[in-house]
């Protein structure tokens, strides 16, 4: 990146323009970083997610919410605070509304729309009440685009809820959130930003290497150790004492 900037600087780019470029580069590079983390979360750890996009959408929503325009810095706490509150509202309201209208016989899209409307109203309400109660205007200044990004997850909840149990949906939602929070924490670190700017080539190669490793990884996912605990964490070759059902496969 440095060499590139050096060349551009020679073409009479202002400091601001270079800053913009750097910022864009950072933002664009964070995308593969986030997807790499989602990949690790999915294939190595075994966390489920609502969709491939959900952790990315959520991470960037957090990022935008925590971004302070005035001094171009990131406030992780603020991002997480608003992000989590919004996520919870979306999750809760989607679930409740869906439960309410589940029995009504209607097509899927209108149903999802009704759920989405409830979410929209709730978010607006939360903004108003939040401002009134805490006398803080932070909520008013929330980046509308991020709010919408989080709200799109509502459809994914409803789609999952319509097919799976509430329990399952909540587990998946929590795991999506976990992945996003981890991704957000990592990309918000100044160290990550510095590294990305100063060692761009190394970063790209590193990400390539990690993704090849994850892509070819055929070992058990961490969560699978829990899923198959009865098979893995047992001491004896025979099981259940009587050994009657045991396979005869000692080599």
């Amino acid at each position, binding site marked *: 990146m440095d060499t590139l900037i050096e060349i551009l600087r020679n073409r009479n780019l202002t400091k601001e323009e270079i800053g913009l470029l750097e910022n864009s580069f950072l933002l664009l590079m964070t995308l593969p970083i986030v997807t790499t983390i989602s990949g690790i979360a999915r294939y190595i750890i075994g966390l489920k997610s609502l969709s491939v996009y959900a952790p990315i959408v959520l991470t960037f929503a957090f990022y935008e919410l925590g971004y302070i325009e005035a001094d171009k810095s990131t406030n992780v706490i603020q991002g997480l605070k608003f992000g989590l509150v919004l996520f919870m509202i979306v999750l809760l309201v989607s679930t409740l509304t869906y439960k309410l209208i589940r029995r009504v016989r209607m097509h899927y899209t209108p149903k999802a729309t009704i759920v989405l409307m409830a979410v929209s109203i709730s978010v607006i309400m939360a903004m108003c009440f939040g401002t009134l109660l805490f006398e803080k205007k932070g909520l008013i200044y929330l980046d509308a685009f991020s709010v919408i990004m989080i709200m799109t997850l509502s459809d994914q909840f409803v789609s999952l809820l319509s*097919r799976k149990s509430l329990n399952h949906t909540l587990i998946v939602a929590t795991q999506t959130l976990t992945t996003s929070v981890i991704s957000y924490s990592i990309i918000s670190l100044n160290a990550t930003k510095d590294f990305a700017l100063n060692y761009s080539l190394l970063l790209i190669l590193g990400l390539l290497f990690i993704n090849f490793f994850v892509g070819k990884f*055929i070992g058990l996912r961490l969560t*699978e150790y829990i899923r198959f605990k009865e*098979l893995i964490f*047992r001491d004896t070759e025979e099981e259940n004492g009587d050994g009657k*059902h045991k396979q005869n496969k000692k080599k």
Partner: protein
Amino acid sequence: MVSISKIRKNSKKVLGRNERYLEYIRPHNRRNAFKIADDKVITKRLLAKHDIPVPKMIRVINSYEELESIDFNELPSSFVIKPVHGVRGGGVDIFYNRDSEGQWIRADKSKVSISRLKTLCRDIIDGKYSLNNEQDIVLIEERVKTHKGFRYHTFKGAPDIRIIVFNNIPVMAMLRLPTERSKGKANLDQGAIGSGIDMAVGKTTHSIYGKAGAIEKIPHTRLPVSGLRMPYWHRILKYSIEASKAAGLGFAAIDFLIDRDLGPVIVELNARAGLSIQLANDTGLRERLKKAGGIKVKNVEHGIRLSKDLFGGEIEEGIEAISGKNVIGLIESIKVFSKDDESKYEKLKAKIDTGATITSIDTGLARELGYSEAIDFADENLKSVPQSIQDLSEVKKYAKEQQLEKKLTEHPDIADTAIIKQSGGITYRILINIELEISDRKVSAKATVFDRSNLNYKVLVGSRDLKNFLIDVSRK
């Protein structure tokens, strides 16, 4: 504490999702095969073409227009609706009967009117249950009637048998029993029971209840889940190999239902076999796949034989395969066949006694089986033997003088004679030819006949007739 090396060793036996996809699903299943497996109508047609039984198709509904043109009153009172591209049993609805108002009744007794049924069909067409919420097709087919063998073990719905076939060898199998919790559906996620199946004999072994872990008995009953025998096991294995071949699925999970009248029918082919089957069998799949991988399977029968030999779980099966002998216990349930009629037999518990040379049978039982004539004939001839002779050599001498053996063996049912020395004294007895079946193996035995009515077992099998068996004293 379990040692780390043990954990590493055990974890190598288990197949995870990563390896399943990269090493098995992708390399072994042709792209075309996914299309077949993901479309239940194509699956049906293909299997029917290969003479593999499938449930009968009643109707296919492709679109809203078609849905409106159907007269639902023409449907039978019992049927199943399914999304053609459905995944994990979503959107499947089973109707058992129809009430007087024309509403269909589900397993949980909830009722479905025609307009509700149409909405269910619309949901399916809208893609609510398909892989990527794409537009789907409704499939209406005949309901498979539960096989009698499962009548007491299942709640409402028919249990389904899943076979995982890899490289034309059935490697693992599972029976899924619908429960009250699963609302009559054979779906583990919804709370059905999953039982591992011994590949050699088709009997259930270890079982899990939904996601709750191991169970021994069917909930709310005293019925044990293990030891349940799959009807038509050989045919199931055969069809599973044939289906995987026909569809071009090198690695597949094939789902069967057993119909009361038709026998095994294939309801679904899956290119992405679920991994819970490992928990039901209490065994890792990876180890079995590795074993099955390198083998060149010549034909369907070869595949079945390999499956039974390699993955027929129980230890004794292994010993039997090596020694060619069946393993039996000290007390064994046997069949004793009638003299004249092969189809008539007496089933009873017999004492297996290696201390005795000769098999013996109770007089009363022998008479029931049609040996009365021979017994009376012998009694007639032996009446003259004086009871006073209590010395072995003297009995021998007497028998020789009287030519007892020659006289007695003239009767076609009497094979031989023997002098038996017991605590009660020495007796001269006849041996009759008798057919036994011990542990599914026919044995032509020669048995002495005497009154065992005051003994615990009416038949005692002696060492002379136990050549083809190994005796496990701990077996009950």
